[in-house]
């Protein structure tokens, strides 16, 4: 099996699996979910690192560093904000009557 085919199959499989899993997330948590997903989209950082490694010319290297900064901010900030949000969700301590 060619590498291209594997990559496309992985994409399809990941999309379907992700779709199924995310369907079970309640709308209560949609904002943290989205911001967590946003952080994950910073996975492109790996691509940036690989691309920057291959860069020789100074301007390419500089462009690479810019991309790495963008992606790192995306990842770090995304996960931290999600953590901040999720920690705020607290249940009631069984004193209120449940509907």
């Amino acid at each position, binding site marked *: 099996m060619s590498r291209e085919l594997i990559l496309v199959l992985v994409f399809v499989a990941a999309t379907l699996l*992700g779709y199924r899993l995310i369907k079970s997330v309640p709308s209560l948590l949609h904002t943290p979910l989205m911001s967590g997903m946003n952080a994950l989209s910073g996975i492109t950082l790996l691509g940036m690192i690989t691309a920057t490694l291959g860069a020789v010319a100074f301007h390419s290297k500089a462009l690479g560093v810019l991309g790495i900064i963008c992606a790192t901010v*995306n990842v770090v900030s995304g996960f931290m904000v999600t953590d901040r949000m999720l920690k705020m969700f607290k249940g009631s301590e069984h004193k209120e009557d449940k509907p």
Partner: protein
Amino acid sequence: MNDTLYYVLSALLSVGVLLGIRWMSRVETAVNGNRLSALCMLAAVVMVLVRGGILDDSAIWLGLAAGLVLGVVLARAVRMITIPQMVGFLNGLGGAASAIAAWMTLQGTVALNTFEVATGALALCVGALTFTGSMVAAGKLQRLLPQKPIRLPSHQMLTVASFLAMLLGLVLVVVLPGQRLLFAAITLLGSLAFGVLFALPVGGADMPITISLLNSTSGVAAAIAGMAIGDVLLVSVGGIVGASGLLLTQIMCHAMNRKLSAILLGKGTDKPAPVPPVQPVMETPAPVVEAELPPPKDAAQWINDAQDVVIIPGYGMALSQAQHAVKQLYDQLIGAGKRVRFAIHPVAGRMPGHMNVLLAEVDIPYDMLFEMDDINPTMDKVDLAIVIGANDVVNPAANTAEGTPIYGMPVLEVEKAGRVMMLNYDDKPGYAGVPNPLYQERPNVLLLFGDAKESLEKLLT
């Protein structure tokens, strides 16, 4: 590190991310789910650094360190009310990074096959339009740009032209790979312009959909860039993010009764909001005079009388920062032995689930926050519905006013409750521009106009 080991580790990390998402489906495990995803990401970065043998590349370390510091500062500074623009902004950065990675792949010295050139150009295009689209959306949410739909002269034509330039560049990159940088540049410019033109006409109410959609494209951009670079982890994680954004977009579209295609083409929001279509169901409300309103002591009486209360927050609550006052009201009602529930409309706020975060921030228990479909069947047993800064999502005209933007949109049926108290800024229609029949004189509706926070504080004393 050989390829087999790399594939195995990539698969493991993908499973870790999926497990993290699974944990996100329950509040109790969500914090750990997010941390697991973050840990997998960290492991992935370390893996790439080791695999590339780049431990001594100072430029890469510089980029990582700068990004880390900026990211931490940003995450600590952000306020919960501004989460939508924060997510939009970070989305844009992710899109930009994917576009840069794709560009560097295309201009690199390594020989590329057709698949790599094609996916590289596509990643460039999706990443670039995610970048500009997200930045415009974030700018609108931050009020750096007007929140109203903006339409340039011959907007539709410009949109089509930029889209065609994007497409043409894509095709030519593949057909004539000899000139690939020139055509990639055409694609890049077309995509950047398309992102701007797509996001400018988006009005306030369509923002949740746009943010969800751009979230999806940022994932797709990463996945396609992964195909160009040949990195399987980028492809799998990017695919997951793409699916998530798409699912949320569908949920939002359904909740607003909008077709995705209409929003993509900037339709619907074109209708100038101040001139809504004539509605046969209602007469023009008489000009509201503040003095005509029942004195606030009635409000206190209504609250006293009610046993079963539903509170419906909207973006107006967030705008006036009334969450703490809402929490006080909640405590007071609970203290008086009443049953209190919060009803959250799926599109209340500026992104999916935004209201829940704002209420959780002021320590309102999350098990008191209910979805529309759970509340509506019980609405006729509710004694008092308190609407705080929400309009379109409780507008009964959605069921009757054919031809208006909200016709057919599922709404919270507050008119079925025994009494309704509306704490809105004024009696102007909401973003959709459809007048709300609840603003007409009705014996069981109490209107408290003004800043939501001030109105609440009056209620509390």
